[in-house]
């Protein structure tokens, strides 16, 4: 089969840039070719074998092992297949990914899933700031796919997010879903300050404690039971606090009217 296990030999002196190491790109290569792939180390490009040992696998999975917290851009633009990072990873994990399954077994640092467009990204640990958001300077954040964060999220989660579904099983930092364009964010734990700051459209579901809602949101007069059944049944398949949503009541707050927004904060009772 075409999978590989890449094991980091030692913590690198500088940050490693692993963009290009996707299951699809490596599928057609032999182990010797994989060892020669260029990897960014600081401001230099060096062969992958300088940092990783390469072993072919009996399946199609690309597995990264070792202390990966200085490895950035894991799964960057991946377009299919299965990639597993067996531990904490650096910045931009799953950034701009289009398809496939990326699983991070530990914490992901800043900008995880930024501009993600498809596929499924699961992060077993926490994520840093600006997850599911836009690249610095870009207008649109996450635009498709499913992001599951089993731990807590940092600040500015989903900033400028436009489409897709992102679930946080733990708590979220300040400015959750700031400037949200559209899409769905669901939170099981506690939210920080200023949820939905400047949001235009989209839905934020609070399955746990009610957040502090800004005065720039208006309480919804009408319920949205049909839409709620469609959404909550889809979220329910992820289990946890989201498993029972369909049978629970909720209040909605619409806004952010300070930004001309018509999005909704769905606070489950």
């Amino acid at each position, binding site marked *: 089969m075409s999978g590989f296990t890449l094991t980091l030999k030692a913590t690198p002196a500088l940050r490693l840039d692993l963009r290009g190491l996707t299951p699809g790109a490596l599928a057609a290569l032999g182990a010797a070719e994989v060892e020669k792939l260029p990897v960014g180390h600081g401001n230099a490009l060096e062969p992958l074998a300088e940092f990783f040992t390469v072993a072919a696998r009996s399946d199609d999975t690309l597995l990264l092992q070792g202390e990966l917290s200085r490895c950035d851009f894991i799964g960057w633009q991946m377009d299919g297949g299965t990639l597993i990072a067996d531990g904490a990873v650096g910045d931009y994990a799953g950034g701009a990914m289009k398809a496939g399954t990326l699983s991070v077994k530990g914490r992901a640092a800043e900008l995880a899933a930024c501009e993600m467009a498809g596929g499924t990204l699961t992060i077993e640990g926490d994520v840093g700031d600006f997850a599911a958001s836009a690249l610095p300077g870009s207008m649109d954040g996450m635009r*498709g796919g499913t992001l599951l964060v089993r731990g807590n999220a940092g600040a500015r989660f989903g900033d400028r997010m436009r*489409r*897709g*579904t992102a679930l946080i099983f733990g708590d979220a930092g300040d400015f959750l879903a700031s400037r949200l364009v*559209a*899409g*769905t964010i669901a939170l099981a734990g506690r939210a920080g300050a200023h949820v939905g700051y400047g949001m235009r*459209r989209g*839905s934020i579901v609070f399955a746990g404690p009610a957040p502090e809602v800004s005065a720039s949101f208006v309480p919804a007069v*009408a*319920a*949205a*039971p*049909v*839409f709620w*059944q*469609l*959404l909550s*049944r*889809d979220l329910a398949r992820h289990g946890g606090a989201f498993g029972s949503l*369909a049978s629970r009541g909720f209040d909605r707050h619409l806004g952010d009217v300070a930004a001309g927004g*018509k999005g909704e904060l769905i606070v489950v009772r």
Partner: protein
Amino acid sequence: MNRNGVTIDETFAEAFPMKATRILITAHNLEWARHAAVAATGFATSVIACGCEAGIEREIPASETPDGRPGMAVLIFAMSGKELAKQIERRVGQCVLTCPTTAVYAGIDEGEAVALGKNLRFFGDGWQMAKMIAGKRYWRVPVMDGEFVAEETTAVVKGVGGGNLLLLARDTDAALAAAEAAVAAMKKLPNVIMPFPGGVVRSGSKVGSKYPALGASTNDAFCPSLVGLVKKTELTSETRCVMEIVIDGLTEADVGAAMRVGMEAGIALGAAQGLLRISAGNYGGKLGPFHFHLHKLLAGGAA
């Protein structure tokens, strides 16, 4: 062939390819889902002048619908994909969007996508919102009872239209009884509709007319009032009333199955109840690619 006193003609029904879709209408309760479905399938007996042929396929229990509310499955057939798209938009826009509490979903996933809520969303005047849920796109349009939820598209598939049975009976009572029994049996099957009023049509037609402007005209060979007057009649002094059942289905097998159970229901009544003969309408086999031979259907074989 004779079954229970009923003569089964050695003939076949001739049917045509059509474009079809299924839409699923849900509402706060079954009553309102039915109101929407009845309205949306109204004036849809024949493509000759209605633009499409449509009917209610079945009731859908709340446990099987996307939003957990009771619903109705509706099948719509047209002669072209373009005409079907037009009919869907008009019918859903005027009869489902307008009906209290309804929502509308695609009832078929595989096939060419045509607009369902995609254009109706503009009714929202900018307040409409799209939502992607589990890979499907929905529109939420604000309306006076809350919001109208519509899936963006439904899928168009190839269907079969024009399967038919002619039930020749002793009198009106017997013909109606046989037709009603046949329609009731057919309605239990999935993937088919009988688009005429009550599933039954009394004005069966032949191709052509003495008037050049008309493409079809009354099927004089089966008109009891013309026995003795026309050159060729199919009727006798015994068979004085004829009813036709037209069947549209998603596949050839579905139409064949409906014709079979319809015939069996008529045969069960038998000559004792006044059903004397079962025939079918065709055009010599040259126009439509689907031929449903009555004897083969009753023998359980393929059409």
